[in-house]
């Protein structure tokens, strides 16, 4: 009798395992489906343009609360296995991606917004990156609907990604308030980095006036400014080189205050920049830094010689 019960239990356990296994395997195997960055798809290509940014954060819920409160973004959540991803939208347009990633015990890492620069051929970009002194952090790989991407560290150590978007690149339009409008690379050697990024993306490089001992360079393609390169601040000579991305705001002072009210921090107080509007640097509650940039339509004009 005991033998029969034992055998029957084993049979049931085996059947349960058999029926539960397909479900588990399906979840483990499911590829993460990420939305295209341009909807409807475009045929435009703008090599060298920052076309996407993605936040890596240990608290996706807190990030959604913060950025939703600050910029009015809404979110579409998705999950594959244990990977949680949120697509951030503003007025129906994709503005960013957010990925949940735990910070493992003892790991000293800081959440960050990662800058994705447009390329036509990710594998060719990898070859160029390696040839010019970069390191590959993530090998080229394809994400269904999104495109092919890879992540590198430039010769000074700043992390950036390249993306050959399956849906084309976003058109060259002025960002609306709440959208990403600008990017800058703060680096220990702007001159060498400019040569690196020029080799990667064929940028035109403009050398702009700066305080003695500093460099301020501007990268451009398609006759549009794409990013600035700046020396590390004098008081932060040992800082890790990094890319910063800026969201267009109507009022940097008010938005900074709102960021603090939502649990963020102000890293650089709002200050008037060369273009006449204010710039500020803030961090979200998990510590990811990003910029705020005031901009009016009248400010987008060319300097004529």
């Amino acid at each position: 009798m005991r033998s029969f019960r034992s055998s029957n239990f084993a049979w049931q356990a085996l059947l349960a395992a058999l029926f539960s296994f397909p479900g588990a395997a399906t979840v483990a195997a499911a590829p993460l489906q990420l939305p295209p960055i341009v909807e409807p798809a475009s045929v435009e290509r703008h090599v060298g343009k920052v076309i996407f940014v993605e936040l890596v954060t240990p608290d996706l819920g807190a990030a959604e609360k913060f950025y939703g409160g600050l910029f009015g973004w809404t979110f579409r959540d998705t999950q594959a296995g244990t990977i949680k991803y949120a697509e951030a939208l503003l007025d129906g347009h994709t503005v960013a991606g957010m990925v949940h990633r735990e910070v493992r015990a003892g790991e000293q890492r800081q959440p960050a917004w990662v800058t994705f620069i447009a390329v036509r051929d990710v594998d060719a970009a990898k070859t160029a990156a390696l040839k010019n002194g970069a390191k590959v952090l993530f090998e080229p790989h394809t994400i269904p609907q999104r495109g092919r991407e890879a992540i590198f560290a430039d010769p000074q150590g700043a992390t950036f990604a390249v993306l050959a978007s399956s849906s084309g690149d976003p058109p060259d339009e002025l960002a609306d308030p709440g959208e990403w409008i600008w990017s800058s690379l703060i680096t220990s050697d702007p001159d060498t980095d400019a040569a690196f990024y020029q080799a990667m993306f064929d940028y035109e490089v403009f050398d702009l006036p700066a305080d003695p001992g500093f460099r301020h360079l501007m990268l451009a393609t398609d006759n549009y400014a794409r990013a600035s390169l700046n020396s590390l601040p004098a008081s932060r000579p040992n800082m890790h080189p990094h890319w910063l991305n800026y969201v267009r705001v109507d009022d940097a002072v008010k938005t900074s205050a709102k960021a603090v009210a939502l649990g963020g921090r102000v890293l650089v107080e709002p200050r008037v920049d060369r273009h006449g509007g204010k710039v500020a640097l803030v961090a979200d509650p998990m510590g990811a830094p990003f910029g705020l940039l005031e901009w009016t339509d009248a400010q987008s004009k060319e300097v004529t010689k």
Partner: protein
Amino acid sequence: MNISRARWSAVVTAAGLFAVILAGCVVPVGGGYEDGGVAIGLGVDYYEPYGAVYGGWGPGYHVAPYRGGGERRDERGGGGREASHAFRPAPASHSIPSIPSHSRSGGGSRRH
């Protein structure tokens, strides 16, 4: 006893075959994310090094896009000499571009 053993063997064999078939269907996608040792197919593991202290931007520290009224550094008292760069400077005949002025909602003019 023999019947029970035969049934048990058949179940184990079926389970094994089923597992092999399923394992064959599980294809790691791309490189990138390590999720408990399983490649999920998203290349993000790039937290910045911890401890960065931001700020320290002096009064002449500018990061924003350019706008009218400025000049290029190589136009400033260089006496016509080109400075030495690791990069290839934009031709002197090229003016400094700004960001796009045309918005989705209209207004402004699109330059091409």
